[in-house]
């Protein structure tokens, strides 16, 4: 189920809210779990079994890790088995055909494809399951004796399908001891509306443009159109994913949860290293804490340090999708980060700020082309058009059409990717209580939020174009 769907807004959400708050504290987790399982089953109930199996497996591994806590070797063995178990599930559903494809290519074989349909959100719930067992092993959270609590942690609907990847240590205490209150609830509403608006008003418009541009062969597009497509996709993926994270965080607050932030205005970054500190923070920190640091991080020889960096970035790419495009995309960033870290980082830091910004965004946009393209060949040809290496015409009617028809959306997207709104809010909060500025803000805030919400509903009633990019992962 999509957060940005009428069924979610007008059937699922009111139902879960009513039951959650009407049935009393004792039943709140049960209500949330029941609705979370329904939320997942909505897209195809047969895959619910996969998630339930993953939950049961991690519940048992969690208990076993706790049981062998004093016996370090046994606990480590259980941890290894849990890792193998989780990776087998994700490997089977996500990577079997990729594996067969590569076997066929390398050995010129003709093994038939398994054509396995990937359960939605598998990359997210698998990583949360792994996080549960690892955090118990590390003593970063207490083991859950009640399997329903493990099920709730892994399947909690606000973050189930597209993150943020909530680590167990973050919410371990909240599962049983969270506090719901008026302020938190209203702040959840505001955050949810902001996320919904990012998704419905910006990501969907940008997505329409990107899809139409990328439906062309690179040989058929002008240089300007290639840039418009690239920028539109850059906007789509940010507003789509950060909008989803905002909605997840907002919904979490409505039920008393506090999830960590997943985005921090990544497009204002002045280096690629900074970009990755601001983009999909929950995934970057997951890999940092569960892969990079256990491998030794930077506290090892230079060669091993490089190995650790590339291992993390290859896995980051592979996590996003079973194709060489994604692997190349991950390694592309691995290379840039290594170059920034060991060679040009300091020199870039001394450049004029706008130049650093252009440098970063150019590399990020190039990365998104690799990410969006069906094949590496397509990405190469597309990039050749963007950078004038293919003798395409500079302008075209189609390019001018998007520029004129979607000028407001582009403008809004640019403004919304910067922290202007946050800065204004921070500035306003410095005014004294009772001042006219505070009164104006208090008056305007519900009007702005309600208008945004109504605009979203208006767009949802009208439009059938409403994809979520990260549902693929």
């Amino acid at each position, binding site marked *: 189920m999509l957060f940005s769907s*009428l*069924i979610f807004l007008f059937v699922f959400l009111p139902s879960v809210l009513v039951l959650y708050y009407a049935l009393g504290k004792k039943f709140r987790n049960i209500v949330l779990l029941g609705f979370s399982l329904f939320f997942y089953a909505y897209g195809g109930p047969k895959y619910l079994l996969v998630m339930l199996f993953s939950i049961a497996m991690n519940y048992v591994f969690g208990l076993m890790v706790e049981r062998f806590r004093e016996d370090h070797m046994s606990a480590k063995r259980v941890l290894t088995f849990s890792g193998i178990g989780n990776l087998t599930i994700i490997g089977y559903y996500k990577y079997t055909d990729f594996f067969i494809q590569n076997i066929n290519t390398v050995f010129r074989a003709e093994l038939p494809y398994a054509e396995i349909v990937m359960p939605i959100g598998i990359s997210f719930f698998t990583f949360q399951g792994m996080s549960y067992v690892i955090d118990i092993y590390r003593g970063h959270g207490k083991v859950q004796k009640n399997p329903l609590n493990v099920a709730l942690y892994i399947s909690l609907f606000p973050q189930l399908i597209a993150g943020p990847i909530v680590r167990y240590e973050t919410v371990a205490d909240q599962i049983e001891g969270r506090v719901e209150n008026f302020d938190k609830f*209203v702040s959840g509403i505001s955050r949810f509306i902001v996320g919904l608006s990012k998704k419905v008003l910006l990501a969907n418009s940008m997505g329409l443009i990107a899809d139409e541009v990328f439906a062309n062969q690179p040989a058929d597009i002008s240089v300007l159109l290639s840039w418009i497509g690239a920028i539109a996709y850059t906007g789509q993926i940010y507003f789509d994913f950060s909008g989803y994270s905002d909605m997840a965080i907002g919904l979490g607050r409505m039920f008393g949860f506090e999830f960590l932030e997943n985005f921090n205005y990544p497009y204002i970054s002045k280096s690629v290293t900074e970009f990755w500190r601001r983009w999909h923070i929950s995934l970057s920190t997951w890999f940092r804490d569960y892969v990079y640091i256990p491998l030794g991080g930077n506290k090892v020889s230079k060669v091993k340090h490089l190995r650790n960096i590339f291992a993390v970035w290859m896995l980051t790419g592979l996590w996003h999708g079973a194709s060489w495009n994604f692997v190349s995309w991950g390694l592309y960033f691995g290379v840039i980060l290594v170059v920034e870290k060991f060679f040009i980082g300091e020199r870039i830091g001394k450049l004029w700020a706008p130049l650093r910004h252009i440098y970063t965004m150019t590399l990020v946009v190039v990365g998104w082309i690799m990410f969006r393209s069906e094949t590496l060949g397509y990405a190469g040809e597309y990039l050749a058009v963007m950078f004038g290496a293919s003798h395409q015409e500079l302008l075209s009617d189609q390019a001018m059409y998007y520029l004129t*028809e979607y000028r407001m959306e582009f403008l809004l997207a640019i403004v919304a990717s910067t922290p202007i709104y946050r800065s204004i809010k921070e500035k306003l909060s410095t005014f004294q209580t*009772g001042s006219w500025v505070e009164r104006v803000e208090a008056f305007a805030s519900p009007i702005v939020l309600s208008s945004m*919400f109504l605009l979203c509903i208006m767009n949802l009633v*009208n439009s*059938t174009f409403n994809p979520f990019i990260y549902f693929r992962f």
Partner: protein
Amino acid sequence: MKKLSKLTTLIVFLGIIFTVPVLTLLKTKEDISQFENRELAKMPEIDKERVLSGEYFKDWETYMADHIYGRNGWLEKYTYMNMNVLEKQKINDIVLGERDTTLPYNPYIPEKTLSQNLEDIAEMSERLEKLKNSLESYGGELYFAGIPVQQSFYRARYPEYFERNEEFLDKSGERMFSLLDEKGISSIDMGKVFAEEDRDDYYFKTDHHYNFEGSYRTYREIISRISADSQAGIRGPLEREELDIETVPKEFRGSRNRQIYYMRPTDEKLQIGRPREEVAYRKLTNGNPDPEMYKVGEQDKYVTYDIYMGGDMAEIEVHTDRPELPNLLVVGDSFTNAVEPLLYYHFNETRVLDYRYYSEMDIYEYVEKHRPDFVVYVRDNANYGNLDGNGNFGLEN
């Protein structure tokens, strides 16, 4: 103050998410969306397979979107916002062209490529040749009348940068008529006729059809050609002074304007023409008596193109009981509707089939049964390569 502000946010948000579903549940469900000209989703029926595949819940999404409380209001406001606030020139797949003309949006990557269309046109010309041979076996004649679609006629009115489909339409037209020539099929190219006359008022600005002027010119061309080519002995077309041309005073609502909730102001009016010297006739629609050619009275507050013959019908017969005159069969879609009230005047019996709706007999069976002296096949230039509906003549694939 802050608390009041938060309370307002809470009340508005909860008010909306709780009120809309209740009102949706209580509201009378409609079957058809007049504005979108389509059937609305029916309540999903539970089915094990569809539940397991997730399709059942998707059906609920569609149902909710189609029946949400105040749907038309939401859609209207969306259109208004896009038109007046975002100042878009393309809304709901309608392009706001110059001189208050509303045109369809042509995607930059067409659903059908020109080369595919040219192949289908070749197939269509073979189907027409086969029909022509079949008619000639008993002395009948086939005419092909090609009508430009509104966006083709008003192509110059597209705003800058919008795709006009010129190459697709022009090359398709060239191929269609050259193949018809090769196969010896009589053809009437109304695109050429209109272009030669240098008039720009043959079509509605807010509807996808021609207006009375365009349909009258088409009628004249068809009758002139048949009477000039054949020995049928039919009189030439009715001159303007032989007609009572009436402007229907009601508001005209065009199909393209409907898609944007009639937000494009227009002073267009619909006209009808009746022969001054009447000829008695019996008219049947789908086998039932239906005397009116123009359904003026049925549309109270406003009129649409459906005024002509009551809209698209599967089969229409007009009998004038003048056996000395030939019989005519017209095959085509809505472009035939506006010419039918004048065509019948020249024939003993006029039959009209629309194979999008008619399924009792294929064209060969129908022709065998009724032996028309002339068959006029009417096709618009966007559909020369469309092998379905009227392009299939009711034959099973």
